[in-house]
């Protein structure tokens, strides 16, 4: 006699309460393939946990974003935000799509040079540039965005005697109606500090004020804030033209557009609440085109988007280690990836899907990582089917920041693979090894 399919016995308390307006989730499907490549085969080949990036999705995101802006404004340039994901393969995809590089440290700057980005297509941001790094950027004719007066003064000194004036931009911070105001970077608009910095650059005679830069926040969910920012940036540029007879070549509106991940504490899922890239583009370009620039003097619009271009192209594959019940009866599942590699689980309610067929019953559970640390919680509360040790799961939308902010802590960092547009899988970063971690360690002789 053929045996029947087994399912773990399971009971669930029925609670009479208010109706759930979203209805019950029914018939969820396992997530078995990424770009037609089986999840199980990826784990079999490269181990678990494993980061997977979809080249197809990265290019699709970039092209959608470029189209959103370029169909509304005549001069648009994207610069890939290195800190979002600076794996060389990822950067190279964006550079192939004609994206410049936006870097915030000497390390990232050299990475961009190594990726073949011409110096004059590198935007150097950030508050921590050293004299050596500034000199390198000056020699390469990069765009240096000045963060504070110390840096401005240093640049004036470094520029002395240079045949070509260094091209600089002023980073401007401002009140756009969102909280917190990122006033720790750059010069304030409302207080007049930004205008004073502009005057100082122009009056120095040694620097070439090429553009103005702002970056109003991160995961900004209201398009109106960008409209206010664009209006203030345009007014500064127009004032430069009117009072100093100096044309601003570009306005860099930074990034900060959200992906469709769900922020912790959100009532509704991100997919329902986040404006699209077209909404942001409409707000920014609409404001700039109406700001009062002469038709032939519209500045180049630069965007430094990171997260929105790559978050949904990244997946983290993992394996269930164990199940347990907590003291109050709640189920807990332990998986083999922790917050040290999935940094964004601190602020997102990441969607997690089983990678194999599952029984229809869902149970509310906590998902813990493997670290022996109380903070290692991937999801505090998620409805998932009953998973067994050895089952695989897929965490969605992890492409931004995790592969740069990940930490070697307790466990080693996993490999990263890229699925190209022909569905071929490429290892773009190997799994970390003990040798690699200990390579630069030294034990003094008396301790050996």
């Amino acid at each position, binding site marked *: 006699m053929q045996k*029947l399919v087994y*399912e773990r*016995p399971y*009971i*669930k308390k029925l609670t009479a309460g208010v109706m759930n307006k979203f209805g019950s989730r029914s018939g969820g499907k396992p997530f078995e393939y990424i770009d037609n490549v089986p999840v199980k085969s990826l784990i079999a080949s490269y181990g678990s946990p494993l980061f997977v990036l979809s080249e197809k999705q990265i290019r699709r995101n970039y092209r959608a974003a470029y189209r959103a802006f370029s169909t509304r404004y005549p001069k648009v340039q994207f610069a890939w935000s290195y800190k979002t994901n600076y794996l060389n393969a990822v950067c190279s995809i964006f550079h192939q799509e004609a994206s410049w590089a936006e870097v915030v440290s000497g390390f990232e700057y050299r990475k961009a040079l190594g990726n073949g980005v011409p110096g004059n297509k590198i935007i150097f941001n950030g508050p921590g540039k050293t004299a050596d790094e500034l000199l390198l950027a000056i020699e390469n004719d990069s765009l240096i965005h000045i963060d504070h007066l110390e840096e401005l003064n240093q640049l004036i000194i470094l520029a002395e005697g240079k045949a070509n004036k260094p091209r600089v931009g002023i980073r401007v911070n401002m009140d756009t109606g969102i909280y917190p105001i990122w006033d720790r970077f750059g010069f304030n608009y409302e207080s007049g500090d930004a205008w004073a910095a502009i005057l100082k650059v122009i009056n120095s005679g040694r620097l070439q004020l090429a553009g103005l830069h702002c970056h109003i926040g991160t995961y900004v969910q209201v398009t109106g804030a960008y409209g206010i920012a664009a209006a203030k940036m345009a007014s500064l540029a127009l004032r430069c033209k009117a009072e100093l007879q100096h044309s601003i070549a570009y306005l860099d509106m930074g990034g900060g557009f959200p992906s469709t991940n769900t922020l912790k504490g959100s009532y509704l899922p991100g997919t329902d609440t986040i404006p699209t890239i077209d909404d942001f583009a409409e707000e920014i370009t609409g404001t700039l085109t109406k700001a009062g620039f002469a038709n032939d003097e519209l500045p180049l619009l630069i965007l430094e988007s990171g997260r929105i271009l790559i978050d949904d192209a990244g997946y983290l594959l993992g394996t269930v280690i164990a199940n347990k*019940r907590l003291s109050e009866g709640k189920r807990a599942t332990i998986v083999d990836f922790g917050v040290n590699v999935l940094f964004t689980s601190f602020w997102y309610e990441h969607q997690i899907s089983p990678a194999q067929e599952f029984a229809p019953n869902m149970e509310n559970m906590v998902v813990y990582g493997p670290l022996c640390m109380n903070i290692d919680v991937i999801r505090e509360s998620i409805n998932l089917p009953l998973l067994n040790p050895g089952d695989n799961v897929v965490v969605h939308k992890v492409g931004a920041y995790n592969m740069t902010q990940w930490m070697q802590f307790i466990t080693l960092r996993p490999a990263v693979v890229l699925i190209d547009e022909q569905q071929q899988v490429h290892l773009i970063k190997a799994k970390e090894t003990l040798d690699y971690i200990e390579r630069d360690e030294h034990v003094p002789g008396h301790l050996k």
Partner: protein
Amino acid sequence: MKLKKNIATSENGFIFNPATGDSFSGNAMASEILLAMKNGDTEAQIKQQLLQKYEVSATQLNRDWEDWIVQLKEANLLEAAIYDSK
């Protein structure tokens, strides 16, 4: 390990505890086991029946059984203080 006497169960997985007013829904496996428990079958007998009937290893079944007992205990459906006995 014994169900409270007054617990009402139905074949399609509905469970009612008249003492507390709590009700539960269970999957097919849960109702089958509850029925057997109500009939007074021992843990060993129930496991034996399940192993014969379903595609499951003894290891998996033992593991799930432990979780099952925790669920019943948490739901307050077991006779007090005897849920550890065989």
